[in-house]
């Protein structure tokens, strides 16, 4: 599978990373080198092998469904690049 400039542009957009048009060919080339390395996995016989979802078999613990913290709006907003009136502020998304 070979990645071209259009695919590189699409992936960059999906990842929400701005890549300038003139940087796309080099990016596609890097992807191809890495994917070429990954292609080795096609040699492995994986017939009937279950994909790993947890490296150490353990059931996830449960806890009572109760509120254990909260009321820390100030702390949550403290590091925001733009916080106003108790909210995170972003550019307008709805006209």
């Amino acid at each position, binding site marked *: 599978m070979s*990645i071209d400039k259009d695919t590189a542009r699409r992936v960059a957009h999906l990842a929400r990373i701005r890549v300038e048009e003139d940087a796309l060919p080099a990016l596609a080339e890097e992807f191809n080198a890495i994917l070429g390395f990954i292609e080795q996995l096609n040699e492995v016989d994986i017939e009937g092998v279950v994909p790993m979802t947890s490296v150490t078999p353990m059931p996830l613990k449960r806890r009572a469904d109760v509120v254990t913290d909260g009321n820390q709006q100030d702390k949550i907003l403290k590091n925001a690049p733009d916080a106003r009136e108790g909210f995170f502020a972003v550019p307008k998304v709805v006209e």
Partner: protein
Amino acid sequence: MSELNKLTISDARAKLRAGDVTSVELTEACLKTIEGAGALNAFVHHTPEIAIDQAKAADVRIAAGGAPDMCGIPLGIKDLFCTKGVPSQAGSAILNGFKPEYESTITQQLWDTGSVMLGKLNMDEFAMGSSNETSTYGNVVNPWRRGNDEAALTPGGSSGGSASAVAADLCLAATGTDTGGSIRQPAAFVGITGIKPTYGRCSRWGVVAFASSLDQAGPMTKSVRDAAIMLAAMSGHDPKDSTSADLAVPDFEAALTGDIRGKKIGIPKEYRMDGMPAEIEKLWADGTAMLRDAGAEIVDISLPHTKYALPAYYVIAPAEASSNLARYDGVRYGHRAKLAKGEGIDDMYEKTRAEGFGPEVQRRVMIGTYVLSAGFYDAYYRRAQRVRTLIKKDFENVFDAGIEAILTPATPSAAFGLGEMADADPVQMYLNDVFTVTVNLAGLPGIAVPAGLDKQGLPLGLQLIGRPWEEGDLLNSAYVLEQAAGFVSKPGKWW
């Protein structure tokens, strides 16, 4: 009281308890040494006021008697750990200015035992790298040099700041994290000990996530005994991390009996790579002989899927990273790009991430996005997860056959020069983790122990891999190897 910064944790513990030194004296010795070691670029955020306050409190506790093992010990903390009110940037510009309002579980546990925080340590951006050249703070320099050659060498990565700081005696020990080898490879490159515990032994809460199914924190120390002492303080179940194991933490130090008679240690033939330097091969053979001489039974074993570990890792880790790093969007914390008139929220996301992430992080996030995207998920991600099952099965098979530990080289070479890999294909850099990455994929404990010097005078390390939750037993094997190898070399001070 000179050179207190050179003490091991165990020696400092004895001196503190005997009243021969105070934690304040130890801490001041480290702070002074750090001040003179700017050329290494290991410490990137200094917290001398916190350190002195903690040291004073530790001295009170020690004087009262019954203080924990780590009480009064000055440490460096990798920048990946969130520390309350102290910059925690994961080596990334996208977290410029970020000061957490909370403390990671592991660092909290360390402070609860009375340990002292000297500051935050440099690292590869988001722990992605093997040479500490991807950090927003600039490169870390290895205190070791090739003889009289002044060329600056890498301390390895991603825990390069931790490695450099411990090797140069800027602190008694440091925290590290390991996703594909990020504790063990740098430890080997600077001649110190580093252990990655079993996945789930240490809480990941408050540690900036790279690849959640692979990430584990661990100590980087001057001796195996120190690793045992510090690991105990970092371990334990945490309700805030659902993947942390609800298991009792054994007394790892008590496991250091020095007796490995009759223990079955495996030598995996697949780790004998084509083109492996003769010195690495010899080191491995020497290490094998040392363990045999100590009474271990050496067994040739096979881990047939070893060669597929790195390609599987370079699907799984970027996939998890692309998901984990989606949170850096310029909204809640860190950097936000300035927008031109008329630009909207998508422009904000895209520009913020292009400005905030360095090239290696961008590359991995995009590879991860690609392998998870519609039409490729089964071909790449699902296939890699199935290969991961096979890699783990390889280890289970040899452990079921009675093997108790596995000996391998820690790295395929000694430390290389900063900038030497700049023109190489990214895959060449990834090969640094060829011996360590299998351990993360299988969730096992692994430890790097310094075992010798190469002909250029640079340290080389060996790796021991243990059974799940058997860190005590693994540390004991490492202790025997350490005693037999008798590695005592230190880098000559040039900085």
